[in-house]
């Protein structure tokens, strides 16, 4: 009885393996999209925009499977390996770290899987193609604007909220802030990491408001942390502090419209998303592509409506409602 | 320091006569003087027994010898030289090895691994071990000792007796000069005890000194060359065994004359109040039926493994049964779980007080009070004052010796721990009290107190089921004896019929006659 069962199971297994490969050969090229982390609002957004664009443009050119990198370099590397072994034609991934994925990406390319890095790049001597932005530029944009508006000058008391230490974007943006602030002679009274998190930024700023009530400006590496700072300020009744951050995510735009956030920076989200889809299509067809550096834009009240419309899909009605609240 | 009999303690002979000499040894713990100014010596190549009630200091002294404790004052001389041990490993290096009462075994380890624990034989490629050579040596050694163990069996599958045997063999393998044994026979059958004694005599013949703690008088006199009596941390006397007797030793241990071991039973046995009918559980016990009278002590005898404890647990619904009924005052009882049994007046003092009877890290008060909240005070809220009164009452009537009612039970002696368990169950005033090995590991003085307690209970009309492997005790306390053999009732003996031979005969499966 056991033997018969075993024989039946083995036959079924063999049959399914054959049929899968048969089906696979006649199917479209496959692309894997490894999102840095589903719980990262920005990266998730990029993925959504990519998927929308792909549906409209490349549905007949290739299929897409999405994966969650869970913010974990280890997990991301495992996913790259698995997709390589699974013989995907291309992998699109969002950058989490410039060095750790390098051997895995090189292995993928060597095995015939094209790799496209978006929202960042890695140091692999050009094996993969990238759509990148310069995080230092993103940080610098904000400080330049602040200086231009006279909000930051010599002696202005400023604080910096960093993202996860050691990551490309956090290090870059912090460098952008600190270099320019130091140049102009501002006084950085505190500089802490809140690990990209609203709930971690809030108690930090709450305490800063007590230890250093003279703070005039807060520079945060992402909108989520700025929101935590804004919450702390609101509970303490401090509306006088100017807050700057990067991302232009949904809540950030709303805060900007309501006058709480002074300025934010939008990365070229469509560039990242659509560009990646375009790269994938091109590479699959056998064409060459050239890696690009996309500039980020400063978002102020004039530009925020546009961002909300195009990136966050708001209707004019909804945009109007935001201010009422 | 005067010995009990009024004469001065014999001056100790010159240190050279002794392998171990204790000079003014004292050991203090917070609030307790465990040992006070102990002076005596142990001659080499002898079996030297330490006798005394619980709390007398015997275990403490052993732990001082073993390096587990450092004496607060005084010094120990080992072969004439002052002994300063940094710990038990150091003691082992000096040739002092200890077999603990509460065995320290690692259940998942195999026999072989346990045998060599701490001194494994390295192979040619360290840090790997040379399994084969260890196994070979072990097998040969075990065979030499007359033991037959599968080296790959896990320690948890061995019986307590087998584990103990292994500990003794282990001590021998590390070339001990002095072997310390703390109550080694508390869980052994008669045959296993004989085997142990045989080993001890072999050890003595090869020049090894054995220091032995025991409560069992007949054992002491079978095995001892010398006997030291301690009481309340003080040295009372050290004598060659042939110069003393059981009553004399007991006198020295308790400090007063003990005219009888078992108090006289004054209570009249009344009518049948409790009936167990047709209890069966496949593979464990079969068709167990018996009756209990008011104020009676029914001893339950049988070999270890006959199923007595399982029957008791089945009555309490702690273990399942296939069929069987229980009647109290003629009415059938519905017992679905332990609470039903308790609320209808049945209580069980379990066999293993540390595992089933007590919560060691909780206090005396918390342990005694545990069943009272539901069964005495019937309240979800704790009535602190009343619980406190209850606990005080129990501690007083049972003479529980503890620094306070908030002391953790794990710090009490075995006897006081057992009294705590009794306190817990007696507080609910049960009508039927099942005692499973109530005096195991308890000193003579406390045992007597427990016997008196049992009689008090009988006077109050409580019926007692006494499961006991100590035949003497069973016979001294019981009105009738129920003998269980291999899960069935082998026979019931009325008072005049009770004698050791009869009981043993029934227990091993002989037919009743």
């Amino acid at each position, binding site marked *: 009885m056991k033997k018969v069962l075993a024989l039946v199971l083995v036959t079924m297994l063999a049959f399914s393996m054959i049929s899968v490969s048969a089906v696979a050969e006649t199917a479209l090229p496959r692309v894997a999209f490894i999102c840095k982390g589903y719980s990262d609002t920005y990266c998730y957004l990029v993925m959504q925009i990519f998927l929308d664009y792909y549906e409209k443009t490349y549905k007949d050119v290739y299929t897409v499977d999405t994966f969650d990198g869970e913010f974990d370099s280890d997990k991301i590397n495992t996913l790259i390996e698995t997709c390589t072994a699974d013989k995907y034609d291309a992998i699109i991934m969002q950058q989490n770290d410039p060095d750790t994925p390098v051997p895995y990406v090189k292995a993928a390319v060597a095995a015939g899987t094209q790799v496209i890095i978006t929202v960042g790049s890695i140091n692999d001597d050009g094996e993969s193609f990238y759509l990148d932005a310069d995080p230092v530029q993103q940080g610098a944009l904000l400080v330049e604007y602040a200086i231009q508006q006279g909000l930051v000058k010599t002696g202005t008391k400023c604080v910096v909220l960093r993202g996860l230490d050691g990551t490309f974007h956090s290090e870059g943006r912090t460098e952008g802030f600190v270099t320019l602030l130091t140049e102009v002679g501002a006084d950085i009274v505190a500089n802490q990491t809140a690990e990209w998190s609203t*709930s971690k930024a809030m108690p930090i700023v709450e*305490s800063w408001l*007590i230890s250093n009530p003279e703070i005039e400006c807060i520079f945060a590496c992402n909108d989520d942390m700025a929101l935590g700072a804004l919450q702390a300020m609101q509970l303490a009744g401090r509306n006088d502090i100017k807050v700057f951050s990067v991302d232009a995510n949904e809540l950030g735009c709303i805060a900007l419209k309501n006058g709480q956030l002074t300025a934010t920076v939008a990365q070229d989200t469509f560039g990242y998303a659509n560009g990646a889809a375009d790269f994938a299509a091109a590479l699959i067809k056998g064409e060459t592509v050239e890696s690009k550096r996309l500039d980020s834009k400063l978002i102020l009240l004039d530009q925020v409506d546009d961002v909300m419309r195009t990136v966050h899909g708001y209707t004019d009605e909804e945009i109007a409602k935001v201010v009422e609240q | 320091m005067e010995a009990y009999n009024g004469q001065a303690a014999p001056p100790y002979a010159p240190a050279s006569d002794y392998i171990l000499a204790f000079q003014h040894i004292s050991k203090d713990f917070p609030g307790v003087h465990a040992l006070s100014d102990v002076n005596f010596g142990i001659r080499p190549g002898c079996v030297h027994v330490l006798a005394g009630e619980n709390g007398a200091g015997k275990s403490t002294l052993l732990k001082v010898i073993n390096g587990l404790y450092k004496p607060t004052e005084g010094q120990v001389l080992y072969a004439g030289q002052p002994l300063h041990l940094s710990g038990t490993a150091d003691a082992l290096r000096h040739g002092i090895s200890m077999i603990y009462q509460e065995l320290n075994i690692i259940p998942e380890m195999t026999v072989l691994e346990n045998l060599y624990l701490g001194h494994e034989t390295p192979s040619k490629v360290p840090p790997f071990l040379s399994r084969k050579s260890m196994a070979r040596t072990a097998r040969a050694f075990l065979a030499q000792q007359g033991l037959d163990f599968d080296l790959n069996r896990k320690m948890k599958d061995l019986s307590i007796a087998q584990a103990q045997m292994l500990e003794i063999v282990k001590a021998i393998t590390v070339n001990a000069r002095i072997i310390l044994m703390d109550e080694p026979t508390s869980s052994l059958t008669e045959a296993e005890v004989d085997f142990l004694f045989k080993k001890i005599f072999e050890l003595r013949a090869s020049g090894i000194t054995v220091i032995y703690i025991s409560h069992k008088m007949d054992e002491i006199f079978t095995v001892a060359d010398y006997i030291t009596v301690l009481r309340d941390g003080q040295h009372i006397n050290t004598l060659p065994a042939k110069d003393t007797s059981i009553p004399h030793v007991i006198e020295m241990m308790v400090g007063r004359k003990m005219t009888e071991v078992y108090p006289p039973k004054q209570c009249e046995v009344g009518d049948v109040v409790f009936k167990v009918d047709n209890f069966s559980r496949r593979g464990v016990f079969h068709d167990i039926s018996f009756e209990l009278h008011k104020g009676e002590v029914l001893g339950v005898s049988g070999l270890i493994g006959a199923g007595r404890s399982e029957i008791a647990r089945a009555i309490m619904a702690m273990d399942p049964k296939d069929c069987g009924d229980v009647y109290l005052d003629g009415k059938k009882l519905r017992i679905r779980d332990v609470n039903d049994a308790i609320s209808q007046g049945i209580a069980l003092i379990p066999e293993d007080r540390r595992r089933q009877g007590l919560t060691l890290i909780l206090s005396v008060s*918390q342990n005694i009070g545990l069943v009272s909240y539901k069964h005495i005070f019937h309240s979800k809220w704790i009535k602190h004052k009343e619980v406190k009164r209850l606990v005080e009452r129990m501690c007083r009537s049972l003479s529980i010796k503890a620094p306070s009612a908030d002391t953790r039970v794990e710090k009490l002696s075995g006897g006081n721990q057992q009294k705590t368990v009794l306190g817990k169950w007696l507080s609910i005033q049960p009508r039927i009290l099942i005692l499973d090995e109530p005096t195991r590991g308890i000193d003579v003085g406390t045992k007597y107190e427990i016997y008196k307690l049992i009689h008090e209970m009988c006077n109050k009309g409580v019926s007692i089921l006494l499961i006991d492997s100590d035949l003497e005790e069973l016979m001294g306390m019981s009105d009738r004896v129920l003998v269980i053999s291999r899960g069935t009732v082998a026979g019931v003996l009325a008072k005049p019929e009770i004698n050791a031979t009869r009981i043993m005969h029934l227990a091993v499966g002989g037919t009743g006659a």
Partner: protein
Amino acid sequence: MNTQGLAQGNRERFSFVKFYNKVGIFFILIILVVICSMLSPVFLSKANLMNLLTQTAVVSIIACGITLLVITGNTDLSAGSMVAFVGCVVLGTYKSLSESTGLASLPAGLLAVGAGILLSIALYSVASFIITRYRAPAFIVTLAISTSARGLALMYTNAKVIKSVGKIVNLGQGKLFGEIPFPVVFMVLIAVVTWVLLTQTRMGRYLYAIGGNPESAKAAGINTNRTIVLAYLFHAVCVAIAGALFMSRLNSGQPAEAVGLEFDAITAAIIGGASLAGGIGTITGTIVGSLIIGMISNILTLTHVQSYYQQIITGLVIVFAVVVDIKTKGGSKRF
């Protein structure tokens, strides 16, 4: 400290062990307060102390529930994810109720919090059922719940943040009598209720008995499975309330937040004297433990010390508190 010995009339030498046994972890707390007030002039200001209490409230509330679990010898690794999930559900439910049905804010709020509590109870019922019925280790079961809850949170919110939730945020941001933040009020209430449960009720005694020796507890007629399940359900309520407070303080429902709260809660209980082996623990200890952790974070931020030092120092405090605890309890081998 030395006045203690003098007050006793010098009958005995001052014994640190006895002293510590009486005052326990409070001793460490007081020392810490003294050190902190020396390190920063604003530490003892009313604003900062209120901040401190508010910031530790969520973890303290979870820690109350976890103390019960730890006493029975169990644990919960899912508190963080559950806070995220339940918190988002509370905010989301309130938002739907007040927007679509136009219900007034108080009843809508009560319904929303009620929904969160029911959800939490449902999930923890499943967990505790598996833990007791199948004797699965709590560690593994709650770990599974943790990953599931995180996924459920992302699913419920479509991985987006729930914003513009409305008046429910007063739960976390409002103040009683305009002075005491609600989170602090809840923390005190829950701590008191938990204290009463542990010290004044039969169930409390049973929890200790089960943790100390489950076999002995069963022999005493205690229904161990039922009691453990009840402990988890109490904890579920604590987690739900903590979740509602957490998200309302953030002013939005963020499904990716609250990672690792369970470890802060367990650490608070351990510093407070609870033993992972079961049978030991107190609520006062846990709350003090939570305050100690919060204080370390607070003072390091006030003095601009980098946050990684906070982790090192917290680790040292844990070791210190645990060692002192063991030494003064007479070398108990309960770890």
